[in-house]
C-alpha cells in the first residue's frame, strides 16, 4: 500500500498530465472528449469483468441509465450538479438490485450473460416505445425513439448560466477519468480488491474461507455500474441529446470488444482499447469503401482467435522478454527433480 501512494499515484498523475497536454495537439478536443468518455465506459466493464470475473452483456444499460437520469434530472432541476450525482447513484442502485438478484441466486457465466442482455433489451424496448405524451417524468418527456434533446448541460455548480463546454469540458472529463482510475486502483489494492480477484480465480475456495461472495460481487457490480453511469452522464453532456441507442446491443457489444482488444485483467487495457478502437472507428467513418461494422467484427474474431489476452498484456510480456530483468530461475526445485529422477533411473 505504501508503494501505491509513493510511486504509483504520482507516476499515474504525471503520465496523465503529459497525455492531457500532448494529445490535444494531435486530435481535436471534441473528439478527444468522447474518447475519454468511452475510455471510462470501457474501464467500468474492465473492472467487473477483468477483476471480478463478471461478464456483463449489458454494461450499456448502466451507461444509458446514467445518461437518461442526467437528462431527466437536468430538465427538472435546471442545474447540473445534482443530476451528475444522481447519474452515478441511480445506475449503482439499479445494479445493486439486479446484482443481488443474480448473485444471491448463484447464477454464473451464460445465465448471467442472458439476464444482463435481457435487461438491456427491456430498457431499450421500453424507452423506444415512450413516444407518447403520457410518458413524462416531471417536466421531461421521454420522447421514445427520438430521445431527449435540449436539457441543461454541465455548468459551474450553483451558476446555471456558466456552461462548461469545449476545451474546459475535455479537461473536466480527463480529470474525472483520472480520479476514477485512482479510486478504482485504490479499491483493487485494498483487501476488497484482492478478495474480488480471489473470487474470480476460485469462487468456492473464497466462499469456504468465510467471505460473503454474493455480497462482494454485488458491491463490485454496483461500483462498475456507477462508473458506467458517470460515463453516461458525461456522454449526455457531450452529445447534448440522449437516445435509446445508448441501450442498444451494438453498444454493449462494443464495450466488450474494447475490453477484449485492450486486455482483460489490466486497468489500463480497457481504456486504451476503448479510446483506440473508438478513434479507429472515427477514422474509418470518413471512408465508405468498407463497412465499419464488418471491420469491427473482423477485429473481434481475430483477437479472440489469436490474441485472446488483448493488446496490453501482450505488449507487457513482449517488453519483459526484450528488456526486462530476467527472473532468476528457481534452481533448487530443478536440481532436486533432476537428482530424484537420476536416482530412479
Amino acid at each position, binding site marked *: 500500500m505504501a508503494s501505491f501512494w509513493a510511486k504509483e499515484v504520482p507516476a499515474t498523475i504525471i503520465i496523465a498530465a503529459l497525455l492531457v497536454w500532448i494529445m490535444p495537439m494531435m486530435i481535436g478536443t471534441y473528439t478527444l472528449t468522447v474518447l475519454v468518455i468511452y475510455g471510462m465506459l470501457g474501464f467500468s466493464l474492465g473492472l467487473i469483468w477483468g477483476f471480478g470475473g463478471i461478464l456483463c452483456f449489458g454494461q450499456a444499460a448502466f451507461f444509458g441509465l446514467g445518461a437518461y437520469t442526467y437528462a431527466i434530472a437536468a430538465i427538472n432541476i435546471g442545474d447540473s450538479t445534482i443530476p451528475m450525482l444522481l447519474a452515478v447513484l441511480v445506475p449503482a442502485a439499479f445494479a445493486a438490485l439486479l446484482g443481488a438478484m443474480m448473485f444471491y441466486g448463484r447464477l454464473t457465466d451464460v445465465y448471467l450473460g442472458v439476464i444482463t442482455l435481457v435487461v438491456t433489451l427491456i430498457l431499450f424496448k421500453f424507452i423506444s416505445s415512450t413516444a407518447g405524451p403520457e410518458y413524462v417524468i416531471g417536466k421531461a418527456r421521454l420522447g421514445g425513439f427520438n430521445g431527449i434533446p435540449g436539457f441543461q448541460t454541465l455548468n459551474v455548480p450553483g451558476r446555471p448560466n456558466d456552461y462548461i463546454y469545449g476545451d474546459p469540458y475535455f479537461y473536466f472529463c480527463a480529470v474525472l477519468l483520472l480520479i476514477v482510475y485512482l479510486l478504482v486502483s485504490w479499491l483493487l489494492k485494498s483487501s476488497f480488491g484482492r478478495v474480488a480477484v480471489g473470487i474470480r480465480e476460485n469462487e468456492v475456495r473464497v466462499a469456504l474461507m468465510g467471505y460473503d461472495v454474493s455480497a462482494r460481487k454485488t458491491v463490485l457490480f454496483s461500483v462498475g455500474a456507477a462508473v458506467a453511469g458517470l460515463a453516461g452522464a458525461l456522454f449526455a453532456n457531450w452529445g447534448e441529446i440522449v437516445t435509446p441507442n445508448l441501450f442498444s446491443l451494438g453498444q454493449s457489444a462494443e464495450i466488450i470488444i474494447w475490453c477484449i482488444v485492450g486486455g482483460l485483467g489490466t486497468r489500463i487495457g480497457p481504456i486504451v482499447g476503448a479510446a483506440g478502437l473508438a478513434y479507429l472507428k472515427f477514422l474509418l467513418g470518413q471512408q465508405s469503401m468498407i463497412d465499419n*461494422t464488418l471491420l469491427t*467484427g473482423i477485429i473481434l474474431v481475430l483477437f*479472440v482467435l489469436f490474441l485472446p489476452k488483448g493488446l496490453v498484456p501482450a505488449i507487457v510480456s513482449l517488453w519483459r522478454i526484450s528488456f526486462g530483468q530476467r527472473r532468476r530461475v528457481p534452481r533448487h526445485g530443478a536440481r532436486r527433480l533432476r537428482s530424484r529422477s537420476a536416482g530412479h533411473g
Partner: protein
Amino acid sequence: MDLVFVIIVEMLYAVASLVLISAGLAIVFGMMKIINLAHGEFMMMGGYVTITAVTLGANVFVAMLIIAPLVVGLIGLVVERLVIRHLYGRLVDTMLATWGLSLFFIGLATMIFGNTTTGISTPISGFTVGNYQVNGYNFFIILVSIVLLGLMYAVLKGTRLGLIARGAMQLPDMAAALGYSPERIYMATFFCGSALSGLAGAILAPLVGLVPTSGGAYIAKAFITVIAGGPSLIAGLMASSGLFGFISQIFTFAVSPVMGEVALLLAAVVLLRLLPQGVTGKFFRGRL
C-alpha cells in the same frame, strides 16, 4: 367465439415462431454447448437468399425450404471450419467470436444489399373469420414448426446418425473411442444448426421487411428460449417456447405488442432466477 379462435391461432403462431427461430440455436447449444450469437445473422442471410432466389425466378417454396437452408448451412460449415472449431470448450470465447461474426455478416450484407428494406409478399393469402382477418401464412408457420419438431425427434431418436450424435453429445471421448470422430460430428451438427437457422429466416422473411440488422431482433429471443429450455433439446424447446409465446401473446392482447415483448423478457429473467438450469434442468429430466 371468433375472437377466441383468432386468439388461439395467434397464440399457436407465437409459440411456433419461437420454436422456429430457436431450433437452430438449440441444436448447436444442446449438442455442442456453443452459443452461436451469429444465429440471428444466419436467419437474416436465409431471408436474403430467399429473396434473391425468388427475384431470380425460383419458386417461393423451393427457395424457402430448400435453397435457403442449403446455402446458409454451407456458410455455417465455412464458419465452423475457420473459426469455431478452434474454440471448442471455451464457452465465453465462442460467444465473443460469434458476436464478431454477427457484426461481420451485418457489414457484409450492408455492403452487398445496401441499408434498405427489402421483402417479398406472403405466398398464402389471408381469410376472414367473422369480423377478423387471419393471416393464412400463420398456419404455414405452425405446420412447419410441428413438422420440424417431429423430424428432429425422429432423426435423433430413430436413426443411427441420431444415435451417434446423441452419444457424442453425452460422452465425446467414448464416441471417439468407438471410432466416431467428434470433430466430424460437431461439423455436421453445426451444418444442421445453421441450415435450420437459414430455414427459419427464410420462412419468416415474407412477414418482415428485411434489413441487414434484422438478425438482432431474433437473437435475444432465441438465446433466451434456448437457455430457459435447459439441457433437454426438444422438450426444453417446446416447454420454453410454449411458456414464452403464451405470456407474450397474453400481454400483447391485453396491453400492447411492446408490453408483450417486455413481458416475455421479464418472464425470462424471473424464470432463470428460479430455475437457473432451465426448465428441463428441473422437470422432464433425461428426456430428449
